């Protein structure tokens, strides 16, 4: 096993722990916004670590650029969608404090 292989196994494993933590949070946290928080924040970091780990196995530089792009797009989409879902929930849930109807 080379150094790159060990780094890959290590980083991907830590990334998977974050995915696991996010999933546990989704199931165990008490209210809607904390569950959303657990899912979108932990998974972004987990995906970043997995992408970094896989990058050590990619030979050509363009492959690494693609991995970074995948991670960036997933983070961008997750962050934006999390905001939209959270706002939509604020409108609908009874405990919502400020109601902004224009999502």
């Amino acid at each position: 096993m080379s150094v790159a292989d060990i780094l890959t196994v290590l980083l991907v494993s830590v990334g998977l722990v974050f995915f696991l933590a996010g999933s546990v949070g989704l199931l165990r946290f008490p209210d809607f916004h904390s569950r959303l928080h657990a899912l979108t924040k932990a998974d972004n970091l987990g995906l970043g670590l997995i992408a970094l780990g896989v990058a050590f196995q990619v030979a050509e530089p363009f492959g690494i650029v693609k991995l970074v792009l995948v991670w960036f797009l997933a983070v961008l989409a997750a962050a934006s969608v999390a905001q939209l879902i959270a706002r939509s929930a604020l409108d609908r849930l009874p405990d919502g404090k400020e109601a902004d109807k224009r999502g």
Partner: protein
Amino acid sequence: MSAAFLLDAGLCLLILAAALLAMAGRDLFGAIAFFIVYGIMIALAWVRLEAVDVALAEAAIGAGLTGVLLIGAWAMLNRLGVPEDHKPAAGWLRLVAGSASGAITIILVAAVMALPAGREGLAPMVAEELADHGVSNPVTGVLLDFRAYDTLMESIVLVVALVAVWALTPPAVWGGVPGLRQHTRPDGVLAMFGRLLPPIGLVVGVYLVWAGSSQPGGAFQAGTVLAAVWLLVVMAGIHDEPPVSSRLLRTVLVAGPALFLAIGIAGLGVGALLAYPAEYAYALILLIEFTLTFSIAATLALLVAGRVRRAP
């Protein structure tokens, strides 16, 4: 047991579980969610079978676009106040449906098991023929050349489906704008997302169709990415849908299938319908692929937007 076997077996179990939950779920939205999960798992299975072209198409169209269409239909039922029917179907109906599904499964299993082992199928023949047909991605070669009529028919079917959706338009708003008006805050997250992602999506879409000539990619996958960009721009309130009476829109919709058909008929000049003259094959296939991409993108985006709702 190797790691690869464990991965494949786990994937198979997840696919079966997702399929079961999509079918057996009592609530419609949950069933749709599991249908999308099922599509993603099937895409992973295609990657494991080294059919990346099919995986891309399945993820983009099977899981993504079909999922959006189903959620749209579900939302419309909700808006109209149609109650979800939780009563199980009649016993005889379930028996017939179950037997039919079982029979198809047995036939498929028998067909797969009957394949002679250790044969490469048509792959060597495709590889041999591909040399004088311009493109080097065998899937694109099959789709655009050897079995071009399949792809031609598919692209026409998509336009016909859109015509069927448009045919549901009430006379008062004919020629108007499809879908509902989108309301977004001009400084909100969605407006920002809708400005940031489209340039990247355009590049990815063009890359996918360009890559399709030598590696996995192609018009349908690229078209779905461009359709997603189109929908995002509309949903973010940056640009509204064009009215269906627009000549430019209608030209874009039919350009791909029409050009494909025209080049196909011109092929009669060199021997057969849908045959390309060898020295122009590469250029003609690329021309068809790029034109098809934009037609497919417009068709898919307008299928999601639905019927015309607002007067021009």
